[in-house]
């Protein structure tokens, strides 16, 4: 009996060892031409060829969505948000499902966040965008208040696949939703072509699927003061998104002006350095990371519950607050 147990143990050991040798390879690629940010794709695949094919398909899908959600450039033969922003107040524009569904999601998030997260406030965001691009100056109160008069979701109509505005100054800006929605659609595509163990990071929007051979995926959350990692979360089949005041900003007269605008003050939100959200729904994770940046921890906690999500807030004074279940990922 004992002898046979030993033999079986030896066989199992040898088996484990050879199984390790057959571990799928880890491949990675970085894109710099989608969503005005850096995108990393890491996957475990049986061969380099399999990975390259997946990466090519992924890149094509991200580029397609990038163009659809682009508010700065129009492209030949594509009805995108830039085109809709320019023309939808004159006549209804027939749009694809990618556009109508993100706008509908925008309306839902706007309602669920009491107007804090508003993708129809592009008029205000574009004022700040202009100053951020110039890297100098701040908008006048007049300029901001004038823009803020054209941000109501009620002014945007989605009906029968067509989009129309009843306000010529309204602008859509899906910056808070596009990367999450692209992550969601990319995950569907990767699932369809049989890629199971991967991590996709579209500029701070991380989607993880499956596992690495050695275990869970590890996502590091940057210390807002630039001193390495603040924490690390171990995750599988979910998404992790961080919104931070250090991601897109400019400095003027010794003050920093970042890209997350509080529509109540019409200025960059100043409550937090960063907010990290973990949520299975990629689009919700993206939306929530911005929404939580714009509300109190108490309001944010209520919102998280509705989406079954967890969060880590790093406040302006450096103090960290975790939702009830966040630490089980750390």
């Amino acid at each position: 009996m004992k002898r046979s147990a030993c033999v079986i143990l030896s066989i199992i050991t040898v088996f484990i060892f050879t199984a390790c040798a057959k571990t799928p390879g880890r491949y990675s690629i970085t894109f710099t031409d989608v969503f005005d940010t850096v995108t990393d794709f890491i996957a475990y695949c049986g061969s380099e060829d399999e990975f390259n094919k997946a990466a090519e398909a992924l890149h094509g899908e991200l580029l397609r969505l990038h163009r659809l959600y682009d508010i700065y450039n129009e492209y030949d033969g594509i009805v995108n948000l830039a085109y809709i922003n320019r023309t939808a107040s004159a006549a209804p524009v027939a749009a694809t499902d990618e556009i109508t569904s993100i706008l509908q999601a925008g309306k839902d998030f706007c309602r669920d966040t009491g107007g804090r997260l508003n993708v129809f406030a592009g008029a205000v965001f574009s004022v700040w965008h202009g100053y951020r691009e110039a890297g100098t100056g701040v908008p006048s109160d007049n300029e901001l208040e004038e823009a803020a008069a054209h941000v109501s979701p009620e002014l945007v109509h989605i009906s029968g696949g067509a989009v129309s505005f009843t306000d010529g100054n309204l602008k859509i800006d899906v910056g808070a939703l596009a990367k999450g929605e692209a992550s969601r659609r990319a995950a569907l595509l990767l699932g369809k072509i049989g890629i199971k163990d991967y991590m996709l990071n579209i500029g701070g929007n991380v989607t993880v699927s499956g596992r690495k051979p050695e275990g869970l995926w590890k996502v590091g959350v940057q210390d807002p003061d630039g001193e390495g990692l603040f924490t690390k979360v171990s995750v599988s089949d979910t998404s992790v998104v961080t919104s931070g005041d250090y991601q897109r900003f400019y400095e003027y007269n010794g003050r920093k002006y970042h890209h997350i605008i509080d529509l109540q003050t019409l200025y960059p939100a100043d409550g937090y350095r960063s907010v990290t959200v973990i949520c299975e729904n990629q689009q919700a994770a993206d939306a929530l990371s911005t929404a939580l940046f714009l509300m109190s921890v108490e309001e944010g906690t209520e919102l998280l519950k509705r989406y079954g999500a967890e969060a880590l807030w790093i406040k302006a004074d450096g103090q960290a607050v975790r939702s009830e279940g966040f630490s089980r990922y750390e």
Partner: protein
Amino acid sequence: MNKTVVRDIILVGVILAVSLSLILITRTNAKDGKELVITVDGGIYGAYPLDKDARIEINGAEGKLVVMIEDGKAYVVSSTCAGQDCVHSKPVSHAGERIICLPNRVILQIKGDNGADVVI
């Protein structure tokens, strides 16, 4: 105890020890000092140890960047790009940290072991 059983146990022990040490060797080989890895348009432009001061000129997709490594930190001194986001970025020194120049498709990244697959 029967001699054969003892021998079998030793055999199993040896196999386990060999397997474990092989795993450990592969792990330790992966560990090394921090370095700055520069990529242009997805291709590796060069890798530079962070503990050695250096001045690096990079030909990007649209223009030139000058990068300095000083006291274990790397930063962009100048760039011909319009936005200058890369020049305004904080110096990087920790594993996983990056400076990006999108117009030039240049990524400066600190490689080193921080135990994370990605840093956000």
